């Protein structure tokens, strides 16, 4: 429950970041044509914001059923095999998310050790961005686990509903 609330808040944050990106880029166009001096930072900030939006928002996306999946087979089998198939599918997803987390963690550590900056016209310590990716991956894993638990707990009720 708490996880769901937190994930939804992240969903709003992510959406707002996308909106902010639009504002910043539009300002950049305006600055180029009307102020005669494009901002050096706008492009970079926008790029960082979209990365952050993707990773802040992905757990909300999963929670709200946004990460599309093929349902034709699983919707046709009986509850128990259905749950097993779903669990297996989520297991694959979990393995990928875990590998992503591991990889992001390693880069976050390296970025910190070597004081890397992010690519772009605005030097920003990369560890912040890799850190956001680590955070997003953790949230994705937690949400995946929550979904699996949900499938086993609520599966029967949903079947009855149908």
């Amino acid at each position, binding site marked *: 429950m708490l996880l769901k609330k937190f994930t939804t808040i992240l969903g709003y944050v992510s959406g707002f970041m996308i909106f902010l990106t639009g504002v910043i880029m539009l300002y950049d166009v305006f600055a*180029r044509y009307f102020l005669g*001096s494009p901002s050096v930072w706008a492009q970079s900030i926008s790029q960082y914001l979209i990365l952050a939006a993707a990773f802040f928002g992905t757990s909300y996306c999963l929670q709200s059923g946004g990460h599309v999946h093929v349902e034709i087979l699983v919707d046709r089998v009986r509850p128990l095999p259905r749950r097993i198939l779903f669990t297996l599918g989520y297991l694959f997803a979990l393995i990928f998310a875990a590998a992503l987390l591991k990889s992001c963690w390693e*880069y976050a550590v390296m970025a910190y050790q070597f*004081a890397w900056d*992010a*690519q772009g016209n605005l*030097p920003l310590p990369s560890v912040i961005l890799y850190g956001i990716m680590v955070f997003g991956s953790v949230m994705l894993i937690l949400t995946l686990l929550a979904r699996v638990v949900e499938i086993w707990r609520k599966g029967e009720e949903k079947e009855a509903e149908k």
Partner: protein
Amino acid sequence: GCGGSTPSNGNESNDKPAGEVVAMTFNHAFTEQDSRGKTYQFFADKVKELSDGTIDIQVYPTEGLVKNQEALKAVMTNTVDMAACPTSLNSNEAKALAPLDVPGLFNPRKWREANEAITPIMNEILAEYKQRYLFATDEGETIFYINNKNAREVHSPADIKGLRIRDHGMWIGKTLEAWGASPMTVVPADVAVAFDRGTVDGGYTGWPFVYNFKLFESAPNISVLGLSNSTWQYVSISDAAWQKLSKEQQEIMLEAAELAMDYNEGLMEDYEASFYEAVESVGGTVYRCTDEERAVFMEASKGLYEEVAAYSGEKGVKLMETLRALPW
């Protein structure tokens, strides 16, 4: 290697003792037809030839394995064994390399001398990232290529004042700003359209880029400023891969590197001539800035040397001083 064992047939007088073949991967961003793409393949072939096939370098063109901006990290983590690394995309990580991104530190026509001078310090810098410096390729002299009718020839910073000039990295952006232009980022896939439509007024980079993407067709007014390009394109190999090689094999790699640079020089002479021919064939103009005009540009962006020194640290300063000490 493993598998595929062939039965011996007695007559093996020519064969080397069953040496392990060292297989390596080499990632770069260019096409196979590009001067650098050809050079890297030449290098791989040469290494194979000189080592009697005991070193097998598989070249992946067009960022086949990793993106250019990941090259330094990819070699560091042994994701690839070798990679062509442009400093303009990696100096945010190996900050000591940043001075190579500032145009005007050395004469690009003398890139072989520059390469020789910086090899020790480059190895010092790259050691921290678990890799070693092998060789570099010619990035050409920098040119302005302008599609704005009002600025056919660029003689001084005043001629590009306020023009939207495409940049490609932080230091080139800062340089253009220092010259009074408005730097603007355009993704490579849309560069051609951006020039065609006048989204940008021009660009500033080494001529090979302009040639490869046929940008002179939509921005045909060329002014050769003749500074070093805002990137240094070098090949590095991971320590892990280097240590897999015997002493003799390492020598072969270095020998092949020299031969590859000779080959690259030859290629670039023909290539440069055909570039200027191509510009003229589309009705473009070519203006070559005088030494005095170039000096004005260098003076205008001189402040960046201090800035890049502060950014790139002790080793960066050493690299910068090495380059500035070279005769023009």
